[in-house]
């Protein structure tokens, strides 16, 4: 299903933002909110894993039903999950398309990666000493 990716802040994202290695942050940053009708069309329930892809790449997220999201739109909190698939093109403004990226949404059985795994995929090395 083709959708427009919208991103933004949420309170749970803000409270966990300085704890990016935590399970709490992973849960809020990897949640993807969809219109309930779109979830019905995809044949999925709350908590199902979905694969969101763009020409930049793909990321696996956890689907959440949200009445406030219109059909054809998906909402993901700002952070490394959404940014994993957003293009770095800025059209000469310095600002990437954080709210207008067209994405493909499909169901998947793949696991949701951690923030550390996402960073390691782009050449990083996670630091997880307590």
């Amino acid at each position, binding site marked *: 299903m083709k959708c427009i990716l919208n991103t933004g802040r949420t*309170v749970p994202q803000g409270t966990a933002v*300085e704890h990016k290695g935590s399970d709490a942050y992973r849960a809020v940053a990897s949640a993807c909110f969809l219109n309930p009708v779109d979830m019905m069309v995809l044949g999925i329930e709350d908590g199902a894993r979905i694969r969101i892809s763009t020409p930049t790449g793909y990321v696996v997220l956890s689907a959440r039903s949200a009445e406030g999201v219109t059909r054809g739109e998906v909402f993901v909190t700002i952070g490394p999950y959404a940014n994993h698939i957003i293009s*770095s093109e800025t059209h000469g403004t310095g600002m990437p398309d954080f709210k207008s990226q067209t994405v493909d949404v499909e169901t998947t059985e793949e696991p949701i990666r951690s923030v550390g795994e996402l960073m*390691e995929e782009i050449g990083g*090395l996670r630091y997880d000493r307590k």
Partner: protein
Amino acid sequence: MIVSDVVCPFCGCLCDDLELEVEGDRVVRVQNGCSLAEATFMHDTRLPAPIRRTESGWEDISYEEAIKETADILKEADRPLLYGWSSTHGEAQSVGVHIAELIGAVIDNTSTVCHGPSILAIQEVGHPGCTLGQVKNRADVIIYWGCNPIEAHPRHMSRYTTYATGFFVPDAQRERTVIVVDTRRNDTAGIADEFLQVEPGGDYAVLSALRAIVRGKDSVIPKKVAGIAKEQLIRVAELCKNAKFGAIFFGLGLTMSRGKYKNIRNAIELTDELNRHTKFVISPMRGHGNVYGSNEVFTWMTGYPFAVDFARGIAFYNPGETTAVDILRREECDAALIVASDPGANFPRDAAAHLAKIPTVVIDPHVNATTALSHIHIPCTAAGIDAAGTAYRMDGVPIRLKKVIERGYHDDAEILKKIYDRLNGGMGP
């Protein structure tokens, strides 16, 4: 110990009425703050000591070693990028600008991926704004456009708008009309008197339609504009024209969606149009605690608010070219110093990936996503928690952040001064 009149450094509201209970080096209770403030003060876990990435993992290093290696990295670089600056005080930001000038670096702040487009629009058509005190005491019509204060600035409505008692608005909840424009029916929309659910990417068209209606040209408006009925647009335009004092607050829903800075320009021009009928103001909902301060400090030191390139020996500014995401996407920089921010989490993947290919140094109190992409991470104080300093509220009012506890960390301004000294042969900025 109770510390009162504490400023929360988390978001651009910089609420200055917090009361904290402090036990030793810990904050154990936060009064008056929102849940973001509580998390900021009470769950403040830090990186204990500087770390360096090795072939197989991470090793602890001393501050002296970390500072020396950082200076060496910056000295050897041809095109260093200094990025971040929004979660620290003006004192650290100004040392950052001095380093950029000294070594011919590009220095950019986080407004590049939040309200950078708002600044571009303001540079085109100006900023009819005011302080939040004026809004609190006078505004009877509030518009939140492409922003969700309940989630992102939780006390904005109780301190300045919907629920705030003002001098000329004594019964705020009855006397203030709240209009919300967004693609999502978000929590803020739930308390709005009028909610305009615009189709994604349709903000520019809706702003243009409102401008036409305010001008008296409603006959040219089609039945629906980007999903919003003409009748509702006319009703909203009338509400605005009949306001005693109107205030538009806009967020990243305008700066990041299609049209970017042109959306903001259109919103400012709508404000201009409304001022032919009544008093109307417009202001961005700035996100990071001191992101406005980074624009102020950069501007009074270099003439430009963000994306400043010193490669030519003078300050040069060309957003789209000298902005951090573009420099990283083009793989142009060969070293990076990241201060008080997390581009690893907040930049698109390709831009963040370049940080792992070059020597990147992070100076930040917390382990974040950029830590994984860095070569060295130096922990420091957090402005407003264990360091005092100046920060600018979202309406441009400078506020002194307090030091409420001592945790034994070095101030980031001090770390940056030591780096500057090494780069300048022992001479301070």
